[in-house]
C-alpha cells in the first residue's frame, strides 16, 4: 500500500447501499436525490413530483411527467407532434445526435405542446424537455411554440409555457437564432388579441429562450432554485474575472431583481395556475 493511498481523503459521496440492502430494493424502484443523496421509493418520488422531501430540491421533470403533474387526467391532446428537424445546415454529427436523443427520450424534439384542462380550465400547454439536446431551441421548438400561440390566439385559449433551455440549437446556426424572433413575434400577436401567457421558469432556462418568449409573458412564475439567466456563469466569470455569488441567476435572485413574479413550490403550482386561469375566465364572462 502506498503512502498516497493511506492519506487519501475519504470522499463524501452518498452512501452506497450494502449488498444486503441492494437485494432488498429491487432495481429501478428507488430514486436518489441528486442534492442530498437521500434515497426514496419510486412511488413516493413520483408522489412528491420529484421534489426531495428532505432538502427540497426540485429535480428536472420530463415533458410528460410535467404534463401528468399539471393537467387533469386524460385531458391532454398533443399538437404538432410529427415536426422534426431537417438538419438544414447538414451540421457535422447533428443527425446522429438527434437520432440518439430520440431513442433516449422517445421525443421527436425538445418541445411538447398541446391542449389540456387544469382543474377544468382549458389551456394550451408547452413543455420543454432538457433531456433532448438540453432543450435547445431549434426550428422545431420555435415552430411548435409559435404555432401553439397562433392556435391559442384563434381559439381564445390561455397559454402556459414551462420553459427550460440551454439556449440556441447551435447545429441549426442562424435558423436557430431566428426562432427568438419568430417566437417573440408570435407572443406579440397573441398578446395583441388579449391572450394570456403564463411562463413557468424551470431549471435551467438560459440563453436565447430567456432572451425571447420566456421573458415577455404576462405572468412569470419560477420553481425554487431554478437557474434563470441570459449568459452562462462561466462566460461571465471569464469576462469579469471574479467569482459570482452562489445564488447568482437563481429563481430567488430573479425575484429579487424583478424578473419573475413569484417563486412557487412545485406542489403548489397546479393550484396557482388554476387560480390565475380562474381569475382570467372571470374577467371574460363579466365583460
Amino acid at each position: 500500500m502506498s503512502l498516497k493511498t493511506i492519506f487519501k481523503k475519504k470522499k463524501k459521496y452518498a452512501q452506497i447501499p450494502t449488498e444486503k440492502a441492494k437485494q432488498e430494493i429491487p432495481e429501478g424502484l428507488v430514486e436518489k436525490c441528486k442534492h442530498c443523496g437521500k434515497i426514496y421509493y419510486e412511488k413516493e418520488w413520483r408522489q412528491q413530483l420529484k421534489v426531495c422531501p428532505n432538502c427540497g430540491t426540485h429535480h428536472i421533470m420530463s415533458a410528460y411527467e410535467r404534463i401528468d403533474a399539471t393537467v387533469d387526467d386524460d385531458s391532454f391532446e398533443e399538437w404538432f407532434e410529427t415536426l422534426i428537424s431537417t438538419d438544414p445546415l447538414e451540421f457535422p454529427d447533428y443527425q446522429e445526435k438527434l437520432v440518439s436523443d430520440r431513442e433516449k427520450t422517445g421525443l421527436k424534439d425538445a418541445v411538447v405542446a398541446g391542449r389540456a384542462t387544469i382543474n377544468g380550465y382549458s389551456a394550451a400547454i408547452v413543455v420543454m424537455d432538457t433531456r433532448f439536446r438540453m432543450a435547445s431551441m431549434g426550428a422545431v421548438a420555435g415552430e411548435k411554440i409559435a404555432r401553439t400561440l397562433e392556435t391559442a390566439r384563434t381559439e381564445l385559449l390561455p397559454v402556459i409555457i414551462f420553459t427550460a433551455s440551454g439556449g440556441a440549437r447551435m447545429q441549426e446556426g442562424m435558423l436557430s437564432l431566428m426562432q427568438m424572433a419568430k417566437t417573440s413575434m408570435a407572443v406579440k400577436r397573441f398578446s395583441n388579441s388579449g391572450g394570456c401567457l403564463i411562463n413557468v421558469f424551470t431549471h435551467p432556462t438560459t440563453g436565447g429562450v430567456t432572451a425571447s418568449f420566456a421573458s415577455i409573458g404576462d405572468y412569470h412564475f419560477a420553481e425554487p432554485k431554478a437557474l434563470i439567466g441570459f449568459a452562462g456563469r462561466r462566460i461571465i466569470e471569464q469576462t469579469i474575472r471574479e467569482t459570482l455569488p452562489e445564488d447568482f441567476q437563481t429563481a430567488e435572485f430573479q425575484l429579487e431583481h424583478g424578473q419573475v413574479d413569484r417563486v412557487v413550490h412545485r406542489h403548489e403550482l397546479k393550484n396557482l395556475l388554476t387560480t390565475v386561469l380562474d381569475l382570467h375566465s372571470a374577467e371574460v364572462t363579466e365583460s
Partner: protein
Amino acid sequence: MRQVLSFEKPIHELKDKIAELKKMAAGSELELDAEISRMESRLKKLELDIYHSLTTWDRVQIARHPDRPTALDYIGELFTSFVELHGDRLYRDDPAIVSGIAKYKGVPVTIIAQQRGKNTKDNLFRNFASPHPEGYRKALRQMKLAEKFNRPIISLIDTKGAHPGKGAEERGQGEAIARNLLEMTDLTVPIIAIVIGEGGSGGALGIGLADSVQMLENATYSVISPEGAASILWKDAALAEKAATSLKITAKDLKALKIIDEIIPEVKGGAHRDLSMQAAYLDAYLESTFNRLRKIDKQTLIDNRWNKYNNLGGFTE
C-alpha cells in the same frame, strides 16, 4: 502599421518585391521595366484569385479587421443632420449603442447602431460594442420615437454579442433583448438592419428584427462565435475554422437560407480599404430598399414582417 491578414500574405510579399524592384530601377541603370510589369500582372491575377475565393475563415478575419469601418464612419458618410441622442431614461447611457435622428436623402430617419472602438481606449469606453440591457432599452426608446414621428429605422449591426456580465444579468439582459423583439414585431415604420461587421447572436438580433436584413459581403452573422462553438462541440477552440464553415455565417450562406435579404458588395480586399467607396456601395442598396419599403402601407409592412420570420424553414412534418 498595417495589419496583414494571413490569406493576404502572398499579395503583400509580391507587392513588397515590386516596390523593391522599382526602388532598384530608379537608382540604377538596370532595365527592370519588363520584369516589373510581369510581376504587376502576376499581382493582379493573384489578387483576383485570392479575393474571389475567400473562405469563411478569411471573411471572419476581414470582418474583425481593426481598421474595418465602424457604424459612426458610415453614419458620417451616409446621413446629414445627425443628432445623437443618449440614454434609456431608466439607468444610464450605453456607449456600445449609438442612436439618434438624421436625414437620409433628405428624409428624417432614426439610426440605431452598435459602435466598436477605434483603439483600445475607445474600445473600453464602447465596451467593444457589446451592449448592456440599457443599450437595448435606449434602442427601444428610439424605436418608439421613430414610430411616433413616422421615421424609418436604420439599424447598423456590429457586435460580438450582448455583454455577459453581472450587472447585465441583474438588470435583465434577456428581458431587454426579448422586449425589443416583441416591440419590433409591429412597429408601424420600416426597419432596415445592416450587418456591417460581426453579427453576434442575440446581441445583434436585439436591434436586428427587420423588414430588410442586409449584410456586407464579408460581414458575418452567427448564433455563436466560431471559437465558442468549437470549444463546446469539440472541446477545442482551435477548431474555430471548421466551426465557422459548419455554422454557415457568411452573407452568401445566409442569403441562401433566406435569413438575410441582400448582400452588399465590398471593395476589393474588404471595406477597410476604402471607406467612401464602401459607403457608396452601401448607399446604393440602402436607397433602393428605403424607397421600396416607404411605399408599403403600415399593415402590409407588419404582415410581411411576420410572414418573413414565420416562414423560415428547418423542419418538416
